[in-house]
């Protein structure tokens, strides 16, 4: 066991820190740090800067722009990126469809899609969930019927995050309705969002934002060469995609930044003759959250250190679960710190309130999603119970 980074990793850390803090414009990072609805333009600019430096898709095959990094280096890269408030490469591109095409796609698909995916020239969105199939993906209904060399797609997807910005969607569709098991009838299709018959309807969330959408498919014709892998292989691909990213799934750097900001804010809010940070119950809660965050980060590092190739450290299963809980706790506490100021969601022009207070409740409410999306916490617990503890319940 070693407390310190190796010389090589320390140098790597410095290199990442330098890049993120000097090569990504400060105003862009400040906008990202402020929170609220993300700017698509900022996300594009950031990903292209990273891609130009070879830092957008480090976990892809080297041939397609990846780096042969250790798990620890990947952690450091993410950590420094989050600490510097650099928008991360779009997850749908970098972590989802990219690795899928690199692993299951034809050579032609790789050449056609991977470079623009890495550079965010194609903005991808995810077409997995349906109104009747959330955590239970095998129950999906959307159908694709082969007609000549085109698939004709009919049905609906939902919870399509940032679909309003998307150029393409990768979707699970039912191509073999007669397959003996529901899972066997599903295929993985790439679909241009400008194809006639596609309608996107934004869904408003309780914080007022519009980050998710319904996507309707009405006789949408998709060229057959946009099916990835084999017909009926969609379930395998989906499992690959969902299980792909185990390390780095806890947004430690983001939580850390949020908690540090909250502490800074609490030190600036007057309370009696002192500050809110000096109130014993507030201070103790900060100490507790910092302690719990340290425990989470140490677990991430332990997982990174002990994961080799395809054999992740079992503890990796707790990262999504605990990461979402802690992130929610920090945003809940931030809203408490904002206090009465949190009641105002749109401050008047001549306000005396700090700008962050207007976002505090909305961010808290928005991040209730963190324990629902991407495999709910109930699903995470089931994975731990059955996969690690051997409790098939």
């Amino acid at each position, binding site marked *: 066991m070693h407390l310190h980074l190796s010389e090589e990793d320390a140098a790597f850390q410095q290199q990442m820190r330098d890049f993120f803090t000097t090569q990504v414009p400060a105003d862009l990072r400040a906008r990202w740090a402020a929170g609220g609805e993300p700017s698509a333009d900022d996300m594009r600019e950031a990903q292209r800067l990273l891609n130009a430096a070879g830092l957008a898709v480090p976990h892809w095959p080297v041939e397609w722009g990846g780096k042969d990094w250790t798990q620890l280096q990947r952690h450091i890269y993410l950590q420094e990126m989050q600490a510097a408030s650099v928008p991360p490469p779009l997850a749908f591109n970098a972590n989802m469809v990219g690795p899928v095409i690199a692993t299951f796609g034809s050579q032609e698909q790789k050449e056609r899609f991977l470079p623009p995916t890495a550079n965010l020239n194609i903005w991808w969105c995810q077409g997995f969930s349906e109104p009747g199939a959330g955590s239970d993906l095998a129950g999906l209904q959307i159908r694709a019927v082969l007609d000549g060399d085109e698939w004709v797609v009919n049905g609906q997807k939902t919870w399509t995050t940032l679909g309003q910005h998307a150029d393409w969607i990768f979707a699970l569709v039912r191509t073999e309705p007669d397959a003996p098991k529901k899972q066997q009838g599903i295929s993985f299709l790439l679909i241009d969002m400008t194809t006639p018959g596609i309608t996107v309807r934004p869904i*408003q969330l309780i914080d007022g934002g519009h980050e998710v959408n319904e996507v309707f498919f009405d006789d949408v014709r998709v060229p057959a060469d946009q099916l990835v892998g084999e017909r009926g292989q969609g379930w395998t691909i989906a499992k690959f995609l969902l299980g792909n990213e185990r390390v780095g799934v806890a947004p430690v750097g983001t939580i850390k930044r949020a908690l540090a900001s909250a502490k800074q804010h609490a030190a600036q809010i007057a309370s009696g003759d002192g500050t809110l940070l000096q109130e014993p119950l507030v201070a103790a809660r900060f100490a507790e959250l910092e302690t719990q965050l340290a425990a989470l980060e140490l677990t991430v590092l332990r997982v990174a250190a002990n994961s080799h190739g395809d054999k992740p450290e079992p503890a990796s299963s707790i990262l999504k679960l605990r990461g979402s809980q802690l992130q929610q706790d920090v945003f809940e506490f931030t809203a408490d710190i904002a206090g009465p100021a949190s009641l105002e969601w749109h401050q008047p022009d001549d306000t005396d309130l700090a700008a962050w207070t207007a976002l505090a409740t909305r961010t808290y409410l928005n991040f209730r999603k963190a324990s*629902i999306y991407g495999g709910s916490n109930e699903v995470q617990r089931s994975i731990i119970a059955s996969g690690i503890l051997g409790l098939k319940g």
Partner: protein
Amino acid sequence: MDFTIDDDQKALQDAVHELAARHAPAEAHGDVPVGPAAHDPKTWAAIAEMGLLALPFGEDVGGAGASTVEVALAATELGKARVVTAYADALTAAGLIAHGGTAAQRDDLLPGLLDGSVLIVPGLAEPGRSWSLEAYDVTASGAAGEVTLSGAKEPVPYADAADKLVVTARAGDRTGLYLVDAADVTSTHVRFDGTPAVALGSLDDAPRALRAGLNLGILAVTAEALGAMDAALPMTVEYLKTRKQFGVPLAAFQTLTQRAADMYVSLELARSTVLYAGMALAADPDDATAASRAKVVTGQSGRHIGQEAIQLHGGIGMTAEYAVGHYTARLTAIEHTFGDTRWHLARLAATLDDHQQVDVLA
């Protein structure tokens, strides 16, 4: 002690239930208002016309001569239906005036406030400061009859719709209550810059008036919170019964039904505490312990139920088209209104020496 609702109270509940149903936010496909509710004159007029503002006040000042119990019952119905208004704010202002104002001020201000013709709301929060009943950065100066205020109050909910404000300001080393005109106020940001004001009653009476006014506001918001929880739980239960996942209703997943049971526990504890606060404040408007306890219990229950209601719904619970997230948002706002759970725990902690043990049965 007796929690039974009598026939008059039942009739009031029913009437407010119907009023609330008429003025509840419409279900809509597409965007709906989120966040703090704007003042809606129609809803406000209906509330005033039914006499809901007048409930806890004596007939001598235009009140209905009912009690804070009725306030709790009415606010619960409003909360269930998601009718968010200045009800708690106006009641707080009325409480400040009733307990802090001179006889002339009571006679002058309360009838209009209670019949809905004049909207008065409290301005207590100061920007850049945590919640407090003390004023720090807004100061009052000048002799009686020539008082002026300086500094800022923010946010002051419904200040833009109000005719007058009753605000706290520092007078020397004490905190007093002051009436100011709100005709020119156009937002929740209220800046005073040598602004003329009238002292509400005396500095000596201000602390008790503040406690009593706050108690009334707390009762209204905690009862509203009770209503929100009382609606969010059945919605969640219904969803578990009807929504299928993996081919079976969610209610087949024991981990979810056991959590629904815990939500029920939280709800019923909140119900007892809020109704008790209604009874306790009817007997003693100054009973800050009953009010703080109601705020703590609804704060903890509200967070629990609000968060679990969304979690057990899954994605649909996050959407503005569906009511459950709005309840959670409102419960969150109430938590940050009139002092949060931490503030009220600290206030209760300061009184631990006053009693050997908890006693509610007197």
